[in-house]
């Protein structure tokens, strides 16, 4: 019988969505052109050659070793690409993804990547052509809502701020804007440099859609612990308590 990973507890939508994000079995909601993703990332001009930090592995005469036989290099590693990044800011007002789950998604599903998790941003670093592919997956999938999530290399401030009146996540550098046609447009790259052309990222999710797809527990969505005076723990809390107690009593050796 094939093993099915038990990624996360809980039968409410948040637990289900968290499992989906970790499994990588995500719904594709849009198709942003590769060249547009590359432009927003801002590391190389679309169509330009990849910069490299070493020759292709095949030309390097690497020593024979069992690990190299077991692990096939990613396309970026094989080509000798430099390591670049993409970084996301997800609003706490029901953005579909949240930093730890972008990291779990990356760590489980994206070979050769290095996720970093903070409160207001989440970064994944990888070889350049690999990170471009991983970024496109994130952009296109239900992990992302183009109004509540945006790519921000710097000045990331916004995840915890109230939304703009039009429902967009606050961005000091205004890298995206809501067009009159109801589509969100990318107008600056990750670090705030204006793009040559506006990039249509498509329509934002409705509030109901965002609430349905979100992975964040909130009192006005799916609460994790009920409400004041009426506590009801989600299964995630029970699992967490169990883990914390074992770790407190026996460190990492729960014999």
């Amino acid at each position, binding site marked *: 019988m094939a093993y099915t990973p038990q990624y996360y507890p809980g039968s409410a939508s948040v637990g289900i969505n968290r499992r989906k994000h970790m499994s990588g079995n995500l719904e594709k909601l849009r198709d942003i052109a590769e060249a547009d993703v590359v432009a927003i990332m801002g590391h190389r001009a679309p169509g330009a050659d990849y910069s490299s930090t070493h020759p292709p592995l095949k030309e390097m005469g690497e020593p024979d070793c069992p690990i190299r036989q077991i692990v096939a290099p990613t396309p970026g590693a094989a080509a000798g690409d430099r390591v670049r990044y993409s970084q996301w800011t997800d609003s706490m007002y029901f953005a579909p993804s*949240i930093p730890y789950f972008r990291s779990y998604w990356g760590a489980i599903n994206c070979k050769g990547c290095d996720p970093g998790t903070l409160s207001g941003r989440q970064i994944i670093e990888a070889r350049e052509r690999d990170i471009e592919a991983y970024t496109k997956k994130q952009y296109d999938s239900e992990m992302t809502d183009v109004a509540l999530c945006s790519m921000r290399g710097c000045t990331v401030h916004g995840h*915890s*701020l*109230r*939304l703009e009146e039009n429902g967009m996540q606050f961005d000091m550098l205004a890298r995206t804007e809501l067009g009159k046609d109801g589509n969100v447009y990318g107008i600056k790259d990750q670090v705030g440099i204006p793009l040559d052309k506006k990039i249509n990222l498509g329509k934002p999710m409705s509030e109901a859609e965002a609430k349905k797809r979100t992975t*964040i527990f909130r009192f006005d969505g799916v609460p994790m612990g009920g409400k004041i005076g009426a506590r009801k723990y989600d299964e995630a809390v029970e699992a*967490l308590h169990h883990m914390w107690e074992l770790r407190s009593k026996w460190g990492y050796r729960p014999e």
Partner: protein
Amino acid sequence: MAVKHTKKLFMKALNKKFATEQKVLASKGVIEENLQGQKTGYLRLGPEQSARKREFMEYAKKLEGKRGMTGYNPYVHCGGIPLGQRQLVPYKLSSTEYVVEGDDLHFVNNPAMQQMWDDIRRTIIVGLDMAHEVLQKRLGKEVTPETINNYLEILNHAMPGAAVVQEHMVETHPGLVDDCNVRIFTGDDALADEIDEQYVIDLNKLFPADQAEQIKAAIGKTTWQAIHVPTIVVRSCDGGTTSRWSAMQLCMTFIDAYNMCAGEAAVADLAYAAKHAAVLQMSEMLPARRARGPNNPGGLSFGFMADMVQTSRVRPQDPAYVSLNVVAAGSMLYDQIWLGSYMSGGVGFTQYATAAYTNDVLDDFSYYGVDFANDKYGGFNKAPKTIDVAKELATEVTLYGIEQYEAYPTLLEDHFGGSQRAAVLAAASGITTAIATGNSQCALAGWYLSMLVHKEAWGRLGFFGYDLQDQCGPTNVFSYQSDEGNPLELRGANYPNYAMNVGHQGEYAGIVSAVHAGRMDAFACNPLIKATFANPGLVFDWTNIRDCFGKGGAREFRAAGDRSLVMPAV
């Protein structure tokens, strides 16, 4: 029901903070829903919206010709988009009426904060008994209350940097060193009565009776000198200077007061006592990779920090208030000065640290927890000291706090960084558990659980370091083996896992204080520290930390160590 414990203490601060935004939006015909609206109109008014930023810009303009080069210019920020795209909100010092700009809480702009740290590093505690034994047993000198009074008069002349014994010596200007003083304290009431009151830290007057008895019992018949060298000395040198400066002046004073030979070998005994054997430094020196001498913040234990703060003797009936003041002192020192400047640099750490002592947020979460626990267990220090209690209280307080952030988006916006929220939620959980159980390990367990609950709820916590310090942290509670744990009272800024993260160390000190305030202990770790910082001659107000920070921010506080006396007028 827990609902009755919600006080929303932060509402007053939020109304003050967002008043400008609400007023401007109303004038534009955009009606803000209220502090609970999840959307707003961002005004993007830039740095000019803040009085303090305007002052900075105006001053920078004045400096242009003088400096001959560029300086402060907020328009170089990020491609010409300056700070102030959202409202630059002011900060209310918790439980006070002081409302100041964020800039006023950077220690460079706040003389009270500087003085708090100066008061620590310029302090050294030196026992008198060892020196008296040398005088009596080795030299056959008589030591009486009269000779001690004479000695203290000479010492308060010499310690600021004045000469005794030797001829043709340079001296320091009394106006530059007027904050320097030495007082003694003892558990021996009969001796204390014989000493001129100007030289005594009177434990019976300064502390509530039960606390004075605890401290005197702990000190016994021993006698100690609370020495505060001039602020200007440690600002020119560093904390490692304090014991050297004081030891030199102590020895010279003994020679003068007891008519000793200046070069006899017995002086070495006095020097050894003054520099080593009878000395209590405020903090330990650090290992080479973080090399600092003693009396620098990195070696300051949480227990000592808790004892330096004096709120416990003026408001002992309110242990939450006591610990919140310790959190404020610790956050400022450990986060803003130690990690934020000694270890890192720049301005970001202030933003993290202020969350713990402004806008009554931590106050609200902590009082909620304390009331909840009191209701359930019947008072302070009444709950069983068990992991189940830590689990119940930390989960409740964290969920409560999370709900407030969610229900009041302006509150979330105020603590816009995850590290701020993590510190506040975990501190409230730790303080609650501390006061309820009177046990620092239970409290620490509550802290760590809060971190995990928070991370699991929102899928985010603080910055990278929280992965190690907080998610791995539960493994170092309930253990006293030195490589696995330590009583929280004895941990400090250089405890291995605690050596890098903002938003923790001040809160740990607050938790230590909460444990002992909940137990109605007179001190948390060391009675000598508690007695020394009761000295009314200190410049910073150690009884009300947050109020004093507010005074500093409002430019109402006069610090010591000023050099203007010997410089041309501006």
